[in-house]
């Protein structure tokens, strides 16, 4: 699934990464615990999370996550956006809950 399609499904804003809209997302991963992401995430992921601190981007960098989507309408702080820019990892932002975001993406064919 292309990132642009994810954006459409989640009715999301792109906070960083307009150049990445054609990037391919292979699987979805939902977690509010970075320890969990570090232990279980595979490469090619879209990470859906309610955490917004800069360590989310660090973690994404370590496990080669393609893009991060902040759920529950939580706006990340400036430091997080800055790091996303630095690491060139696209950032989305949606008002939907974690549950609804995962449900919609899975329904449209994004595997886990």
């Amino acid at each position, binding site marked *: 699934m292309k990132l642009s399609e994810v954006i459409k499904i989640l009715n999301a804003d792109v906070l960083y990464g307009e150049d990445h809209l054609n990037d391919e997302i292979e699987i979805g991963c939902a977690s*509010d615990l970075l320890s969990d992401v570090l232990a279980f995430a595979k490469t090619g992921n879209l990470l859906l999370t309610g955490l917004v601190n800069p360590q989310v981007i660090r973690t994404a960098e370590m496990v080669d996550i393609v893009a991060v989507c902040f759920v529950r309408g939580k706006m990340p702080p400036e430091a997080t956006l800055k790091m996303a820019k630095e690491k060139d990892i696209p950032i989305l932002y949606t*008002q939907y809950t974690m549950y609804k975001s995962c449900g919609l993406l899975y*329904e449209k064919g994004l595997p*886990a």
Partner: protein
Amino acid sequence: MNVFELVEKLNFEIKAGKENLNNEITGGYASDLLSDVLANSGEGNLWITLQIHQNIVAIAELRNLAGIVIINNRQPDEDTIEKADRLGIPLLVSGLPAFELIGRLYSMGISGKVKDVQGD
């Protein structure tokens, strides 16, 4: 749909709260942040989380949740099981990761019926 029907369909392992498996589910809520669940989950929601600490039971009780599903085969602490039994909160374990479990629940019709945080 009630909790018991899901246990059968999705192969959940029942850890506690057997007597309340007929709790009716109003929707799903997924979060690993306890403060968030406390603030935003809805009554009768099925809560999907990877947290295993006994505080999850207290929150489920406070918010009148239908039950808790722990993902990735994580095993709840002893005190968590004990507390869930005492308070009659269905405590279940699934081998699926959060994204897939939610996806399946959603496709079975358990949606975020309850309003999203900032309106739907």
